[in-house]
C-alpha cells in the first residue's frame, strides 16, 4: 500500500514539475474536438448533438492512449523501470499507483475537454455535472487500469507508440460501449441508466484484479 502511495506521489510530482504530458494530452483532445466540428455535416452544433457522447469518448480514449504511453516511457530514462521492477514490494501496487496517477492526470484533461465540448456543441452540462463526473470516472478507471497494464508491455517493444493502441483498443471496446451508452442516456434524459453503470463496475473490477494478479509478468527487470 505504501508502494502505491509512493509511486502515485512520484508520478504526480514528476508531472507537476514538467507538466508536459497533461499539456500534450489536453492540446490533443482539444484539437480532436475541433476536428470533430469540421468532420460533422454542418459542424458541431445542437443539430449534431446525437453524436456527442460517442465523440466525447473517442476524444477521451485517444487522449488516454497518448498519456498512458508516456507513463512508462518516462521510466526508461536512466533505467528507472529497473528500479521499479526490483523494488522489494508487490508489483501490483506499483502498477496500481501508476494507474491512479494516470487516472488523475486524465481526469484533469477530461474536465477541460468536457467544458470545450459543451461550448462547441452548445450544451449545458452544469445540471448533470456530478453524474457525468461519475460516469467518466468509472469509464476512465477501465481505460487506465488495462491501459497502464499494456503500457508496461508496450514500452518494452519496438514501435511502442504503435503497439499500445493495438494491444489496448480491443480491451477498450466494452468500456467504450457502456460508457458511451451511459453518457448518451445522461445527455438525453438527464439521468444515468443503471445497466451500463453496473456493467462498467464489473468491467473495471475485472480489469483491476487481472492486471494486479498478472503485474509480476509485465513489470520485469
Amino acid at each position, binding site marked *: 500500500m505504501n508502494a502505491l502511495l509512493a509511486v502515485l506521489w512520484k508520478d504526480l510530482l514528476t508531472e507537476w514539475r514538467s507538466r508536459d504530458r497533461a499539456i500534450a494530452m489536453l492540446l490533443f483532445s482539444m484539437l480532436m474536438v475541433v476536428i470533430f466540428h469540421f468532420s460533422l455535416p454542418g459542424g458541431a452544433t445542437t443539430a449534431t448533438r446525437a453524436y456527442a457522447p460517442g465523440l466525447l469518448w473517442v476524444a477521451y480514449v485517444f487522449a488516454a492512449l497518448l498519456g498512458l504511453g508516456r507513463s512508462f516511457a518516462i521510466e526508461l530514462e536512466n533505467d528507472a523501470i529497473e528500479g521499479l521492477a526490483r523494488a522489494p514490494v508487490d508489483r501490483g501496487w506499483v502498477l496500481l499507483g501508476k494507474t491512479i496517477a494516470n487516472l488523475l492526470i486524465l481526469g484533469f484533461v477530461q474536465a477541460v475537454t468536457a467544458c470545450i465540448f459543451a461550448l462547441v456543441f452548445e450544451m449545458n452540462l452544469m445540471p448533470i455535472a456530478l453524474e457525468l463526473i461519475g460516469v467518466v470516472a468509472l469509464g476512465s478507471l477501465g481505460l487506465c487500469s488495462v491501459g497502464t497494464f499494456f503500457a508496461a508491455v508496450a514500452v518494452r517493444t519496438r514501435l511502442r507508440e504503435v503497439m499500445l493502441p493495438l*494491444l489496448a483498443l480491443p480491451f477498450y471496446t466494452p468500456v467504450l460501449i457502456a460508457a458511451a451508452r451511459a453518457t448518451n442516456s445522461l445527455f438525453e434524459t438527464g439521468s444515468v441508466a443503471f445497466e451500463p453503470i453496473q456493467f462498467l463496475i464489473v468491467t473495471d473490477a475485472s480489469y483491476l484484479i487481472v492486471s494486479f494478479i498478472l503485474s509480476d509478468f509485465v513489470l520485469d527487470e
Partner: protein
Amino acid sequence: MTHAVSNQEPTSTSPGISRALTITSAVLALSIAIWAYLVYSAPLDSVQGLIQKILYVHVPCWFAAYAGFAVTAVCGAFYLWKNDERFDRVAVAGAEVGVLFCTLGLVTGPIWAKGTWGHWWAWDPRLTVTLLLWFIYLAYLLLRSFTEGSTRTARFAAVYGIAGLAVIPLNYFAIQLFGGAAMHPNNLERGSLGTGMGWPFAAGVFTALLAMLHLVLLRVDLENKRIAANANAAEWDSDEGF
C-alpha cells in the same frame, strides 16, 4: 530447453512430431475426401438454395479458430506456470493457425450473409466479438515480432493470449446488452439442421479440427527447427571466436 535441442540437426523433425504428422496427414486426406463427397451430395436448402452449403466450410472454420485460440491461452497459462519454453512454441502455433481459420471464417461469413441477409456485414454480437478476437490475436502476433528477448516475448505473449480470451465474455455481454440485434442463431440446437445436413456438417467440423491440429504440429516443428538453427548458429559463432 534451448540447450536440449542445440545438438540436433536443424533440419531433423523430432520422432514424436514426425509420427503424429504422418497420422494426421493420412487421416486428413481421407477426411477431406469424405467431407467433399458429403457436401456435394448434401441436399439443397429449400429456402437458401446452393449458398447454404457454405455452412459446411464457415462454421467448421470457427470451431478450428476457437480451438487454436484456446490452445494459445491454455499453453500460455502453462508457460507462465511451468516456465517451459515448449508450451510457448505450441502457443504461437495455436495463435497463427487460429488467425488463419478466423480469417477464413470472416471471409466466408460475408459471402453467406450477402446471399441470405442481403448485407455483407451486420454488427451482430457473435460477429463483432469474433472480429475483435481476430484483432486481438493479430496484435498477439505483432507483439511477438516486436518484442526482443525470447523469454520476455514468451511471457508478454502468454499474458496477452490469456487476457485476449478472457475479454471475450465482457465484449460479448457489452454488445448483447447495448449493441445491435442478433442475426446469428442463438445456439446450434439439436435438430436445427435439416435431414441429410448433419453428416456433412460433422465431417466439416472433424476435418477443420484435424487440419488445425496438423498445421499446429507443422508450426511447432518449424519453431523447434528455428530455435535449433539459432542455437547452432550461436555455437558456431562462439567457436569462431566472434
